[in-house]
């Protein structure tokens, strides 16, 4: 794995991959949006069910991004690998964006369905904590000037914060909450009708591929900027 993790190899290998990934993400999102607005209104939730097609993918991507960030940070911490540090660092702002989108769309769904923009229940509170973990992680990177020390300190924060992921996931089972329980990846199959499942699947995959596209481009930017800094330091 580390043979491919050399920054130079990464630049060579990821370059041709980006346009394909971006195209696949765009196609899935267009198809997903079409299906999302041609699906019938839900018999209980009416047209607000359409918010699900952007809320659930944003929340899923936000959690996946955190898991990937914590994993990269751990690799960086254990193996002192600069590419792993760059991967963790560049995932954070994207993860924060998807978290914010999940919170805003959730709020816009909560108001008409629950009668409240926000409730301090386990799922929502743990998800808000996810946003603060991302923001804290970004702030810590910016606060420490030395790259190696910053990578180490932020890695510890990212790994400790990963405890929040299972808390978010199981919050709907462990505590009584307004938020609905697991209804897609569950024993006995999904609880959602296929007419809602297809747009949700297309959007979830589209969001995932969009995240990977943006993440790879951000890692490439970080590698270029590091090379730039090294050249400037050499010239000075």
């Amino acid at each position, binding site marked *: 794995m580390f043979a491919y993790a050399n920054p130079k190899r990464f630049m060579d290998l990821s370059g041709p991959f980006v346009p394909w990934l971006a195209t696949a993400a765009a196609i899935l999102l267009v198809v997903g949006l079409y299906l999302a*607005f041609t699906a019938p*209104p839900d018999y209980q939730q*009416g*047209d*607000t069910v*359409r*918010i699900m097609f*952007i*809320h659930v993918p*944003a929340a899923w991507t936000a959690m996946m991004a955190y898991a990937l960030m914590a994993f990269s940070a751990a690799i960086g911490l254990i193996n002192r690998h600069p590419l792993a540090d760059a991967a963790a660092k560049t995932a954070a702002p*994207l993860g924060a*964006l998807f978290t*914010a*989108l999940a919170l*805003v*769309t959730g709020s*816009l*769904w909560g*108001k*008409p369905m629950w009668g409240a923009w926000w409730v301090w229940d386990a799922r929502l509170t743990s998800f808000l904590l996810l946003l603060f973990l991302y923001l804290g992680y970004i702030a810590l990177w910016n606060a420490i000037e030395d790259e190696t020390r910053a990578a180490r300190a932020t890695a510890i924060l990212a790994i400790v914060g990963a405890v929040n992921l299972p808390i978010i996931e199981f919050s709907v089972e462990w505590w009584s909450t307004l938020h609905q329980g697991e209804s897609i990846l569950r024993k006995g199959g999904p609880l959602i009708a296929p007419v809602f499942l297809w747009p949700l699947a297309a959007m979830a995959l589209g969001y995932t591929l*969009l995240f990977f596209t*943006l993440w790879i*481009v*951000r890692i*490439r*930017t970080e590698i*270029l*900027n590091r*090379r*730039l800094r090294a*050249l*400037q330091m050499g*010239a000075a």
Partner: protein
Amino acid sequence: MTEFLAQGGYAAFVWPAYGVSVAGLVVAAVIVWRSYAKAKAHLAALETRRP
């Protein structure tokens, strides 16, 4: 069309949710791409100046 825009009376929630999501993702994509192009151009300029 009017019916579509009304979203069964939930237009005030459905459209802002989609608006915020599309705007957020498009702005992020533009920022990510611009910083990449900028870094690439800077590096190219610096590398051509050096033998």
